[in-house]
């Protein structure tokens, strides 16, 4: 089996953003469950937080290909 150790490194690096995105959406679901009328406001914030956490994973995959 041939492969690239970079990808294993990327898999490890993706754990962090994975946990982060999970926490963000957990908080979002909690917030909507407590106050359903706040969904519109919370959704924007949740997706923004998701995008920022995901940026780390994206930088990781870019580096995994580059290095």
């Amino acid at each position, binding site marked *: 089996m*041939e492969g*690239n*150790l970079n990808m294993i490194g990327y898999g490890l690096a993706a754990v962090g953003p994975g946990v982060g995105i999970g926490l963000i959406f957990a908080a979002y679901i909690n917030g909507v469950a407590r106050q359903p009328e706040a969904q*519109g406001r919370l959704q*924007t914030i949740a*997706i923004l937080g998701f995008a920022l956490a995901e*940026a780390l994973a*994206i*930088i990781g995959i870019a580096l995994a*290909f580059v290095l």
Partner: protein
Amino acid sequence: MSFTLSAVTPLAEESFTPPGPGDFNLPPVGPDNTFQFLGETMYAGVTKPMLQIVLTAALVFWFFYAASKKQAMVPGRLQYAGEGAYGFVRNSMGRDIIGSAEFMRFVPYLVSLFFFILLNNLFATLPFIQFPTFSRSGMVYGLALLSWVIYNAAGIKKHGFIGYLKLQTVPAGIRGPLLILLVPLEAMSNLLVRPVTLALRLFANMLAGHLLLILFALGGEYLLVHGAALVKPVGIVAWLLFVAISFLEILIQFLQAYVFVLLNAMYISGALADEH
């Protein structure tokens, strides 16, 4: 760094070559003019993503032109769809984020940007096209550069050059020697890293998603055709997963267009914000 694991013997005589980023280097449409540059083979010609980007621009223009041509009091089906699409971007990204005072100036840019990116992303799934335009990084850097120019220009126009730099680099409520540490960090994050992450997010999502689909399609085909008898059913499972992931990809394509425009609106609103 590469490693080889010889304990796993190949199932058949023909070995499986996994897809890589090289699969996205499409040959040009029409005459094939290649030249060598820095040891790489470069194409001089029109490629498929170039055609797609022009097609998208034409389609988005045609859709909104046709939807707004006959402005009836009781909207027809096309006008209703056009108004819904326009209203979605204007309300959820323009008004709610930039604020009701100044958002109308930026709505045309945000609406056209959103549908331009959305259609280009959907091309990854549309039959007969099936290539995400933004899996080529050059296409995305152009968009990110345009966004960078627009939000900085909006901020400089409102606050003046010095005032805008102060707004973006000096965090509110902080005085003294801590500023020496924070000002370079804020300048880097707000002025340099933003366009790069904006571009990389869209590009890497489209590339990785499409790579995953290629992997499942090719891997399923390899298992089904070249695999041993017991492994063959796994190929069918891989193809079923391919269909499932395609639906996930459609969601991601929409989400990435949304996030790109949402972040644009956030940056514009940050550049226009009053000093604290």
